[in-house]
């Protein structure tokens, strides 16, 4: 092991290799609780560094665990003691931007918030806005296939990557340039989309060309509360039918709304299920669109309606307070639920999707599952695309609950699949959902798909040195 460290230091410079236990510990965790271990943490500063490390690792059977901010919550970024963490945080340059051609070229360590700050003032934006926008890096978001609140309009990461520079985990540490600066590209198989969402198992991303888009001229927003979930769903359907350009469509269930209001005292308040809808429009039409939206809310028995003619007004009114504070409120509740002082709460965010038309059913069944296991749960989601995020918390010392937790998650995933949905929408598979993956493909009689994926992995990574054991189950098929 010491040899590896010495050799790596010689290869890329000793200031890019860390081996002290404190650093290793800090790079062996993610945003849930997966703690691993590693031989060293390396901080490449260029594609050349990455390639050198890969060549060395290949030759010496050293595993590489790529990492951005480690804000993932499925175990996709955590290492084991058979390898090194490759942190991309020092590759943080935004290299080029073109408004005419609508792209930006940047290194993988750039955080999404930094990217948008950079674009600020130009009228353009990068529209993938996960709740973790302040931590998520370009490399991490690409490899997680992340999405965000504006997913209703802009989809997920897979829709915004035009080109990639990657280093392959092979003998030469080959550098490939895929895609380019154009939106249209039909040059063979779409390897870019294969790498997006691959959770660092196929290739190391060292540069990305991302599509950018004009920020909407004006955004109007309405929030309202519904006693009846069916009313809320009808409201969603009516909005969709009305051909408005939906930007954001967020949902928080009644229990969670109450908990959040009690815990964080948001500026907007009411009782029942909360639906927040933002519509993209132009200045001249703003009032008309807003009136239409309010009318639909009213027609569906919504109460405590709050509306804003612009994003600034929405922020000033605190329309998003409840939705945004779901996570903080959950942490607060989880922390205060601890019985012993020195315990840590673990917070688990689920990530299923169902077709939006099946949402009512999904919510009802989720509640049954939560009741069955006795897990208190908060629930919110992106109704625009049917993505639900049930959240539960467990004391770290509660072994029994931890064991039950796996069954609980499996029940949720089964339910999603039964409703023609998916087990993971934007967070990924990592270490926690491999069983779910098998279940989902088995149900569709398509286990062979997993075999295909294994083969693909083998072609990219013949010695399996890149993020091994992540995402793909090793047995079955």
């Amino acid at each position, binding site marked *: 092991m010491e040899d590896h460290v010495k050799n790596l230091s010689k290869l890329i410079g000793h*200031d890019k290799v*860390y081996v*002290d*236990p*404190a*650093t290793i*510990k*800090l*790079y062996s*965790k*993610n*945003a*849930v609780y997966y703690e691993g271990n590693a031989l060293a*943490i390396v*901080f490449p500063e260029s594609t050349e560094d990455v390639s050198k490390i890969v060549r060395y690792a290949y030759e010496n059977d050293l595993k590489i665990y790529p990492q951005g*901010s*480690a*804000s993932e919550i499925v175990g996709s970024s955590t290492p084991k003691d058979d390898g090194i963490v490759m*942190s991309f*945080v*020092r590759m943080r340059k935004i290299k080029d931007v073109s408004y005419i051609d609508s792209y930006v070229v940047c290194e993988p360590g750039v*955080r999404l*918030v*930094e990217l948008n700050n950079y674009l600020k003032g130009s009228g353009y934006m990068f529209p993938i806005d996960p709740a*973790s926008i*302040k*931590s998520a890096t370009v490399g991490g978001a690409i490899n997680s296939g992340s999405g965000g609140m504006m997913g209703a309009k802009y989809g997920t990461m897979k829709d915004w990557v035009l080109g990639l520079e990657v280093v392959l985990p092979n003998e030469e540490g080959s550098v490939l340039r895929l895609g380019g600066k154009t939106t249209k590209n039909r040059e063979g198989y779409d390897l870019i989309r294969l790498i997006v969402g691959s959770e660092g198992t196929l290739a190391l991303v060292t540069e990305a060309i991302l599509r950018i888009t004009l920020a909407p001229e004006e955004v109007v927003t309405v929030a309202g509360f519904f006693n009846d979930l069916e009313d809320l769903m009808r409201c969603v359907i009516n909005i969709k039918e009305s051909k408005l350009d939906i930007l954001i469509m967020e949902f928080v269930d009644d229990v969670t709304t109450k908990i959040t209001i009690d815990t964080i005292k948001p500026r907007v308040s009411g009782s029942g299920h909360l639906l927040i809808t933002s519509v993209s429009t132009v200045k001249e039409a703003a009032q008309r669109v807003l009136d239409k939206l309010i009318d639909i809310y009213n027609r569906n028995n919504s109460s405590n309606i709050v509306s804003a003619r612009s994003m600034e007004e929405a922020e000033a009114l605190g329309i998003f307070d409840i939705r945004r504070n779901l*996570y*903080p409120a959950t*942490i*607060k509740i989880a*922390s205060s639920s601890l019985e012993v*002082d*020195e*315990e*840590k*709460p673990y*917070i688990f965010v689920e990530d299923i999707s169902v077709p939006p038309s099946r949402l009512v059913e999904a919510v009802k069944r989720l509640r049954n599952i939560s009741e069955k296991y006795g897990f208190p749960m908060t629930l919110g989601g992106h109704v625009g695309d049917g993505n639900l995020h049930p959240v539960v918390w467990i004391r770290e010392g509660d072994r029994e609950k931890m064991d039950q937790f796996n069954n609980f998650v499996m029940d949720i995933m089964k339910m999603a699949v039964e409703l023609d949905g998916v087990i993971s929408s934007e967070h990924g598979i990592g270490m926690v959902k491999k069983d779910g993956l098998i279940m989902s493909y088995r149900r569709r009689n398509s286990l062979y798909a997993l075999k295909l994926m294994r083969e693909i992995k083998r072609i990219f990574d013949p010695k399996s040195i890149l993020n091994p054991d992540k995402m793909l189950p090793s047995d079955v098929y």
Partner: protein
Amino acid sequence: MSGLAELRREILRDVLKCSYCAMCEWVCPTLDVESNNRLYGPRGRVNLIASYFREGVDIGILKESIYTCLVCMACTRQCPAGIDIAEDIRKFRLFLDGGNGVG
């Protein structure tokens, strides 16, 4: 409870809320300037403090991390867990100093 034990409890309770989300890091000047090593940012500091109390950490490295903090409070505003990060770090210095009479 003695002053020092009370102080320990206060700090530990707060830092254990950390969910490792990293939202505090982008504003931290000390993380930015030199190595970009998590050790020199709020998330690292908060978790080293927790480790110090729970499993023990190398005291040299811990001090390096704790005493390079500017206590500028930029991170505190970012934390969704509501951890009073800068204040915990400052209090922890007090703890390291043997409580400066508190104990």
